[in-house]
């Protein structure tokens, strides 16, 4: 039960019903999955739920043996799909509540320390706004690179040519920088952008 077990080894053990293997995989990749989820939805509670659901899927239906994706990439794909579904459901559920929730989020109310809340909320708002202003593909490019995925994996997840990722990534970075620099106002488009197509994942 070495902590140096590779993902593949841990997945194999998980398939044998080894709960400890699941725990190791969870602790190893949770941060990555959470960050992608949070970057996508911009809400802590929602991101936690998405990350947890993603790992529950890993537990219940892990990637098949021989899957071409690495485990982090597979997890990112699951959490992105789930995030889209969640946002879609949320949008349908109650737009008014969404607006209220968005205001709550922008107020930085989830931070207990008032000073930290001010600083964090301002920066968070700017990052959130900047991400929200990006085209969806650019946002995903940044989130997936931030998650440590290789270009080939990003290309596979986003259905892009691997050779184009560098160019697209540079543009995405520039677009984010521009948006971040502009995001000193109060405009938010946080969730309004996400009109996602149904996602299928088998």
């Amino acid at each position, binding site marked *: 039960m070495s902590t140096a077990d590779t993902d593949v080894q841990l997945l194999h053990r998980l398939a044998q019903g080894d709960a400890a293997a699941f725990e190791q995989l*969870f602790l190893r990749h*949770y941060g990555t999955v959470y*960050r992608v989820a949070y970057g996508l939805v911009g809400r802590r509670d929602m*991101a936690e739920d998405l990350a947890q659901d993603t*790992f529950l899927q890993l537990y*219940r239906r892990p990637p098949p043996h021989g899957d071409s994706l690495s485990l982090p990439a597979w997890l990112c794909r699951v959490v992105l799909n789930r995030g889209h579904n969640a946002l879609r459901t949320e949008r349908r559920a109650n737009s008014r509540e969404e607006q209220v929730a968005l205001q709550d989020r922008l107020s930085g109310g989830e931070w207990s320390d008032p000073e930290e809340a001010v600083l964090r909320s301002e920066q968070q708002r700017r*990052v959130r706004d900047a991400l929200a202003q990006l085209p969806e593909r650019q946002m995903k490019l940044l989130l997936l690179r931030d998650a440590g995925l290789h270009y080939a994996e990003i290309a596979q997840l986003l259905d892009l040519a691997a050779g184009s990722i*560098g*160019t697209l990534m540079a543009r995405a970075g520039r677009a984010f920088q521009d948006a971040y620099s502009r995001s000193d106002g109060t405009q938010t488009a946080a969730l309004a952008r996400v009109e996602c197509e149904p*996602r299928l994942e088998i």
Partner: protein
Amino acid sequence: MTNCIEEGTLQAYIDGELLPSELERVQSHLGGCAACSARADDLRATGSHIGSLLAAYAGPPDPRTALAAAMRSISPVPATHARISSASPSGLPAAVSPRAAPRRGWGLAMAGFGVAAAMLLAFWVSGMFQAASSPAESPQINGVPADPVSRPAGVGTPENLSETLKSFVPQGKVRHLVFEEVEEGTSRQKVIEEVWLTNGVDHPLLYRAVSPYGSWQLVGKDAVWTYLGERPAVQGRITRLVDGSASDRVIFKTSYDLLHFDRYVASDESVNNILAMPRADTAAATIDGRAVTVLEYDRDNALRTWPNAGRTPIVGFSSLSTDADTLLGWQPRLSAQDPNSGLTFRVAPSTPEVVYLPPFPTPTASPALRVDIPPGGWQVTGPEIVSCQVWLDSNTRQVLQQTTTRRLSGFRIGDNGTPVAVEQIITESRKLVVDELLDPSEMRLGVFDLAVPEGYRVLELGYTFARPVPAEPTPAFVPTVTPIPYP
């Protein structure tokens, strides 16, 4: 400088994504090109800035706290209720084999809500492949240690299943469904409680689903059998609606892993009913005459559609039960109590175990419907029947259909010595009347023989009982008193 590096290549260089051959070329160029070096520096600074912003943006919570929550979600199962009456107290306690070393408690609890107007009984046994268990192995039966002395306090095992049945559980799962029909205005909804128990070997899951609408749709009977004839559904269930419509219900369930895959077939009328159900995504269905768009949700509640080409209207729906529960806002309970027997059962925290607290209930006869399943009744021998369900109308006590699915799946050794997947599915059905089932001998309708061919191993066993629905109260007799006047 000529032949400057293209921006995408520079970005890939900074991100460490260049092939060695390209890397050498880029490094060589950057050494002599100030412009490209400056561009590379800009890209590097941008990437670094974005990375720091994103890192600060989404500081994750403590993963160990999240892990604890995840583990709770993995094993959130309260035990279920079912009411089984038995005329045979000797049906209790048929303990597990002394050789067995089961790890988990599982079982069947008793519950009831007054007199039963009717009852639905389904049973299935699902077999899958693999080599037969070695007799020398100590089977990991879902249950508790066989030796009563060593049995942990408070842990029980269902006494209603025979040794024979239990002997097939060791590598398998037990699924337990309870269907409760609740009158609601002129329509009826079903509450489905479901528990999966596993031995933790293949799928160490244990969870329960309660879903008022998530697993039921309304269907036309003709469509059902058309569907059954067209596709090798593993299971088909039919019951009659009691809201006055002519629609029926069906669930096709394919069990792979521990996920549900439900399909529904619906008439036009039924589709309308489906659309009236409070599922926002289902409302996306479109009806164009008899051409009904098929909706299907994958286990992530994603939606896909395909046209039905003007044939029998079909509505497809599939979901993982837990996702459906999430959608419906269901939260698992960690304990429950049978109001009749007083049996309390709970789910041990963070462990996929259902712990039954003593005393284990003694079945009592139901005044309305009796299901007698003695320990020896669960014979698991014979052909490769792996699924059977019997459906009773709760109000009329009429058996609507019995559907039996035989499935043989697994591997055989091919000519070249390599495993070859084998699967055969046969679905049969026949009409029944309730009297058949009420006959004690016919109670064994829920008992099916399963012959496990050499080289195969049963991976899944299940049984389903319905909770009796309280009968309509009998109106009190109020005599009419008419004074007789004196002449």
